[in-house]
């Protein structure tokens, strides 16, 4: 394959997928938004190799990925911190790395965080589905998760790599605190539930995925029993299924939900969830949403 504008997957890791900015705009058809879970890391990886932010990258999970480049190019690894090597020689993380044709790029197991992003100059150019190349694990749209032997075409290089040695990135704290804006269904829960959410600590369950992060910890008692009529759900929704422990909806989340959503994460905190590995302690900081001046109960409601 040397000479071809593509990358070959040599080791897929537990779960590596192609991701870009996702396919928002189709939720009314039941199509999840999908897309990179740690969007700032995805955008940074693209910027480092000279791609526009919408170019597709590889999103890894815990154990990284190994690929071989057909042609010489630039790569960058961002997100979860992991050792990077090119043909066995250490290379920089969160920096543009020049890779000769035929060289092997290894992203090892993440030492901090959960999901690394591997960008290639030109971007991964698998066919787009509904405007996106993202793998959607809920509905099966987009390319299948990567498997050994897959060959992914690369697009044309559009710009030069970023003129930086190493891009500054935030550090990941031992315990993650997530701001949660109450609503739309906080009134289905007791005052105690809101206090519990604000004060208690949770842990990321191993039953978490790109669809949602399941938490272990105290249950949130309901004030209103019964069932909610199916309603649209947003990215970052903190939904409380029958068992009472919350689930945070990530990019591949179902478009509709029938369990009440007690609150929604501040969008700036979504990357923290994307990088929270199973066992990671999670705290919530409850924020009252700004009141809508015009909240109105019309006659008959």
């Amino acid at each position, binding site marked *: 394959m040397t000479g071809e504008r593509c990358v070959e997957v040599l080791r897929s890791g*537990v779960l590596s997928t192609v991701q870009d900015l996702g396919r928002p*705009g189709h939720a009314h058809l039941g199509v999840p938004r999908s897309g990179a879970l740690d969007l700032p890391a995805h955008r940074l990886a693209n910027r480092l190799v000279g791609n526009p932010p919408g170019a597709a990258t590889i999103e890894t999970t815990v154990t990284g990925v190994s690929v071989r480049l057909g042609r010489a190019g630039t790569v960058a690894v961002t997100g979860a911190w992991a050792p990077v090597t090119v043909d066995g020689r250490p290379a920089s993380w969160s920096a543009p790395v020049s890779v000769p044709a035929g060289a092997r790029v290894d992203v090892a197991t993440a030492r901090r965080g959960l999901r690394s992003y591997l960008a290639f100059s030109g971007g991964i150019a698998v066919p787009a589905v509904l405007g996106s190349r993202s793998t959607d*694990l809920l509905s099966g749209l987009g390319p299948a998760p990567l498997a050994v032997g897959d060959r992914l075409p690369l697009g044309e290089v559009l710009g030069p790599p970023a003129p930086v040695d190493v891009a500054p990135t935030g550090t990941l704290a031992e315990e993650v605190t997530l701001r949660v804006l109450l609503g739309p269904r906080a009134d289905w829960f007791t005052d105690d539930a809101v206090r519990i959410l604000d004060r208690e600590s949770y842990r990321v369950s191993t039953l978490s995925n790109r669809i949602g992060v*399941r938490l272990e910890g105290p249950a949130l008692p309901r004030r209103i029993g019964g069932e909610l009529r199916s309603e649209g759900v947003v990215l970052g929704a903190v939904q409380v299924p029958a068992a009472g422990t919350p689930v945070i909806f990530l990019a591949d989340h179902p478009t509709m939900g029938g369990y009440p959503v007690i609150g*929604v994460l501040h969008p700036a905190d979504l990357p923290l969830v994307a990088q929270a590995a199973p066992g990671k302690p999670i705290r919530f900081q409850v924020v009252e949403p*700004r009141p809508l001046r015009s909240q109105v109960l019309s006659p008959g409601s």
Partner: protein
Amino acid sequence: MRIIPVGLRALLVEVTEPAHTAALVAQLHGWRDRGELVGVEEVVPGELTVLVDGLDDPAELAGRLAGWQPGAARPPDGPLVEVPVRYDGADLAEVARLWDVAEEEVGRIHGAPEYRVAFCGFAPGFGYLTGLPERYHLPRRAVPRTRVPAGSVALAGGYAGIYPRDSPGGWQLLGSTDLVLFDPDRDPVALLTPGTRVRFRNVDANLDAENVDVRDVDRRDADVRDVGRRDADRQDVDVRDVDRRDVAG
């Protein structure tokens, strides 16, 4: 009507009648098409709600909606989709029993109304169809199937639906269609979008279809059992379901 903030950039608008969701969606599309909903990414009808996501200024929209009346914007009739059905579903006998009719009657009852897609969810292209008279509403199966084949024509709660692809599911299966409901490489990708009208046509029926007397069909009363609305809800939401197909991560 109640307007509830959802995070920083979305609103959930609750209406009092299921029919009002279509009127509200039509109004929102009108504003969006005139460039008056800046940033909006999604307008998603639910059973009694419309979610508007991706708003630059949710408070501004909330103010505008405060004076909105459902009667003011009658939703246009959506396109009509005819669905050819073979009434050969695995639950045909059970549905006939629940309705207290002969098996041959099930297709006539199911095919009599004109349905409307109230909202979509569960899977790309899965529409929740309203229009079946209440006396024919059915609970979900007590034990969901792990695999329902694509094209299965089904009922649960107050809704009719068609599975766009193989998936787990707990709805009662009446029959099957060859119609491809969702194809990302086709335009339109989804046949059943909110507002679309739907008719089912029995492909096995003889040419004497005109002899079917709908009144006759409707007169047969299946007693109104617990229609199990809540079960219908379970259909699309449970992340536990989702976990089964999953990979650690």
